[in-house]
């Protein structure tokens, strides 16, 4: 049966699919032609010409896929599953823009796009490197395009296609309405971007991270080209600037992710050693190692094998991280792993292909590697750079092994789970590595390549050592660092900063052209310093000391209940929960911070924070912390729990609940939802005249002390009256606590009395559970990130310039 569907624009999907096919075929053809372009010197130029045209078709197709898919997204063509799944008409334009890369298909396309942009420079400036380098790049492009092909061959589905129609998608095809001719009219809106990702970081973090991913390919492609053409010593010269460009791009991408996590996510920190975070950190670490050994190689020709191994490892680890995060294998260990889209097999083939390529090329070239019997001296820069690289490798290995547990479980059928305290476990390994790295960063530059005079070295360095000891002693004292590991890291980080600053000033004499390395290294030192102080000395100020102590078993008391209108002291602040306000789908919780003026005993407004909960019945409610930034600290405030169920019921409720009757004797305590009522005893001291009672009438008061959760005391005396033989009681209303207490009767036999306590409905409802943390000196961390980026850019600029100069000389 053929149905004429109404309102579909199928032509775009057809164009899109054609473009994908063209991009795939173009990449393959370009790879083959480039291969013959360097293998067949006689026909080289004509092969290269074909290759360039094929690659042009590929590049134009990739960019056109973007144009078509964006056209569909911005025009809300929900007949396309990808558009429906990731965007909606109500999204602001920047999130519609970002919805492109919410799904895997889009992120693979983004990755391909960056390769296209980067390879443009290779074609333009590569010279004789172009053909052999482009072989690897084109092969990678072909693999990436196969991820979005979406064709089925022999029952095996290759890739998932972003132009699949909604009505043809397996998840939708069984729904009856999808087979009506006018089904499109029945679709109100797309599912839209996940509310959690609706954050400006979603607009910039993925593109930068994927640029980082993409940039690992270039040094790898140069390494492979070096092996393919026998120029195994020359490739590092060209690959160095690209490596440092990649280190900067990938590093920036990772740090943006950390900043996003810190700002918008609620785990209370910028780094949680989550597998997804680790997956991109590890290749960055090996990338840094690769960049540095290549520098050694340029200076003295050694470390060639390490350069090959680390460059290859970096590229493969990027693929491995894609495999980890996208195959669904992390399942139970990661809080943000992806589901399996059925591409696991394809990813493994992709990864295996390049492992084999690199392994094979290195094997057949094994005799060409220079043998060096000469040993680097202890007083040479390259020796210690090499050590640093080894430390980085061990550090990367530790993270990879621990993160890969689920993979080992799958392979060996074991059921090993991550350690109980994941963060503590990783820190205990990585802090010592960080200490060594910081110290190496500190003295490395004072060593010359080949050999350095001992006394000169110590003379120059001693200034930094002394200054660092003094500063770190002061900082350690000020922040009361007591753990040896922390004190050592503190010293090492400060030493790295001071020594590099000193080197920049005294040795380089502020010549900015050469100072890129020093600036970047100061950045690294600052990152470690900021991370150490803000993490180790973070202070949870919402500790609830009034809690019932649950003993050692349950040490966490970081959450505190705050009822509306209450003011609690937290560290130097007094905090009031003023109420909530619903704007659209967001619920804002207004939390006022007050400064105490102890002289006058008054409280003064300091600032107000509005942590949010976004109500989202479909994907789950999302709570977002709010943070007040000061120069020297951040105050992070997060609503960990709030009753969202009856939010739509009227907020103000003056009704009282049914009273509860309690029979008590003097000295007894009754607990209500917000206070403790202590019955002291009966009292006769009542102003009879005010009540208009005659001496014959009987009146007894119950003397009560009501203590609320802020330990504030209220006195209350409900009365029991017999006037002219009529029994009645005079209730007491404690407005502040929403309590009504009446004295119902006296039992003359045992002296016990009956009290009826009635609470305002509001008492039960209006509260939040919140957590507040002070992160001291976190700005040191962010300024370090900035310096790392600036310093790397300076170094990249210098190296590209050197390269251009060399090219001119040749």
């Amino acid at each position, binding site marked *: 049966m053929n149905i004429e569907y109404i309102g579909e624009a199928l032509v775009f999907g057809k164009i899109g699919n054609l473009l994908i096919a063209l991009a795939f075929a173009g990449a393959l053809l370009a790879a083959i032609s480039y291969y013959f372009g360097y293998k067949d010197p006689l026909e080289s130029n004509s092969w290269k010409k074909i290759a360039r045209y094929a690659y042009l078709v590929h590049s134009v197709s990739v960019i056109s896929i973007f144009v078509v898919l964006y056209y569909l997204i911005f025009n809300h063509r929900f007949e396309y599953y990808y558009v429906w799944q990731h965007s909606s008409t109500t999204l602001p334009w920047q999130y519609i823009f970002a919805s492109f890369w919410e799904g*895997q298909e889009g992120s693979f396309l983004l990755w391909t796009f960056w390769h296209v942009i980067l390879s443009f420079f290779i074609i333009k400036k590569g010279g004789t490197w172009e053909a052999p380098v482009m072989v690897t790049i084109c092969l990678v492009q072909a693999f990436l395009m196969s991820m979005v092909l979406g064709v089925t061959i022999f029952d095996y589905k290759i890739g998932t296609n972003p132009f699949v129609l909604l009505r043809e998608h397996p998840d939708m095809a069984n729904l009856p309405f999808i087979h009506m001719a006018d089904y499109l009219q029945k679709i109100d809106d797309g599912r839209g971007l996940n509310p959690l990702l609706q954050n400006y970081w979603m607009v910039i973090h993925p593109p930068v991270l994927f640029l980082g991913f993409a940039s690992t390919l270039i040094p790898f492609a140069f390494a492979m080209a070096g092996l393919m053409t026998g120029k195994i010593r020359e490739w590092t010269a060209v690959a160095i600037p690209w490596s440092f460009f990649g280190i900067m791009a990938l590093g920036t991408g990772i740090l943006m992710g950390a900043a996003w996590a810190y700002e918008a996510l609620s785990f209370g920190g910028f780094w949680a050693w989550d597998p997804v975070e680790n997956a991109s950190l590890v290749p960055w670490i090996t990338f840094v190692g690769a960049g540095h050994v290549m520098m050694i190689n340029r200076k003295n020709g050694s470390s060639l094998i390490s350069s090959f191994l680390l460059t290859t490892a970096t590229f493969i680890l990027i693929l491995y991280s894609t495999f980890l995060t996208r195959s669904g294998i992390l399942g139970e260990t990661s809080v943000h792993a992806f589901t399996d889209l059925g591409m696991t097999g394809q990813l493994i083939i992709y990864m295996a292909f390049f492992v084999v390529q690199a392994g094979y090329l290195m094997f057949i070239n094994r005799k060409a590697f220079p043998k060096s019997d000469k040993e680097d001296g202890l007083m040479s820069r390259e020796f210690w750079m090499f050590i640093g690289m080894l430390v980085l490798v061990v550090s990367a290995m530790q993270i990879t092994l621990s993160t890969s547990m689920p993979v080992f479980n799958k392979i060996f059928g074991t059921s090993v789970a991550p350690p109980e305290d994941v963060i503590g476990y990783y820190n205990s390994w990585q802090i010592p590595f960080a200490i060594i790295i910081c110290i190496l960063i500190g003295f490395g530059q004072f060593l010359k390549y080949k050999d350095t005079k001992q006394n000169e070295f110590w003379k120059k360095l001693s200034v930094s050592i002394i200054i660092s000891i003094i500063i770190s002693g002061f900082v350690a004292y000020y922040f009361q660092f007591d753990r040896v590991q922390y004190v050592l890291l503190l010293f090492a980080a400060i030493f790295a900063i001071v020594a590099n600053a000193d080197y920049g000033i005294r040795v380089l004499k502020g010549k900015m052209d050469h100072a890129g390395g020093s600036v970047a290294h100061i950045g690294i030192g600052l990152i470690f310093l900021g991370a150490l102080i803000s993490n180790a000395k973070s202070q949870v100020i919402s500790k609830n000391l009034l809690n019932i102590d649950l003993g050692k078993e349950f040490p966490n008391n970081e959450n505190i209940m705050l009822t509306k209108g209450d003011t609690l002291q937290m560290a130097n602040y007094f905090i009031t929960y003023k109420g909530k306000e619903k704007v659209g789908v967001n619920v804002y919780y207004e939390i006022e911070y007050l400064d105490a003026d102890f002289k006058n005993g008054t409280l003064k407004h300091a600032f107000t924070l509005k942590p949010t909960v976004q109500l989202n019945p479909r994907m789950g409610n999302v709570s977002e912390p709010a943070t007040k930034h000061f120069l020297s600290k951040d105050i992070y405030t997060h609503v*960990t729990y709030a009753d969202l169920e009856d939010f739509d019921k009227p907020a103000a409720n003056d009704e009282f609940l049914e009273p509860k009757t309690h029979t008590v004797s003097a000295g007894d305590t009754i607990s209500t939802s917000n206070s403790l009522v202590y019955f002291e005893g009966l009292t006769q001291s009542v102003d009879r005249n005010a009540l208009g009672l005659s001496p014959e009438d009987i009146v007894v008061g119950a003397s009560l002390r009501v203590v609320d959760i802020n330990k504030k005391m209220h006195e209350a005396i409900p009365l029991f009256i017999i006037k002219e033989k009529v029994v009645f009681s005079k209730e007491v209303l404690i407005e502040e606590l929403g309590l009504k207490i009446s004295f119902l009767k006296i039992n003359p036999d045992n002296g016990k009395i009956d009290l009826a306590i009635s609470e305002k409905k509001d008492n039960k409802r209006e509260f939040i559970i919140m957590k507040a943390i002070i992160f001291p000196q976190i700005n040191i961390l962010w300024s370090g990130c900035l310096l790392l980026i600036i310093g790397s850019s300076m170094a990249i600029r210098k190296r590209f310039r050197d390269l251009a100069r060399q090219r001119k000389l040749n």
Partner: protein
Amino acid sequence: MKKIHIIGIILIAVALGVIVSTISSSSTYAPFSTAMEHEGKTYHVVGKLNLEKDFIYNPEQNANIFGFFLVDNEGREMKVLYNDSKPQDFEKSEQIVVIGKVVGNEFHVGQGGLLMKCPSKYNGNEAQQNMISSGT
């Protein structure tokens, strides 16, 4: 013997240490029955929430204790006490992983030792959602 060899040996030793510590400090996925046999030892238990029994959460008394009943993959039910506030949307979770140990007839879970999976949130990148709900 060259310096580089000595350093190589040290590094291999460290690497071995890393591997050993990775294995020794890891926990194990297990059902409640195993955890009960080894009272006090930490395990990862995967299970589903028993929604017929009430949650235990009295923030007035202590906002940092949240109790619920979990049925593990073998069908055994146990009372779990979690040392943190009640995670938002807890009742919607399809599957729960708790990291903790058996104490008496309860399963005690420390801060951050609770991972929730909500199927609707596990579509593509949407899985990031989980970070929020687990409060880790």
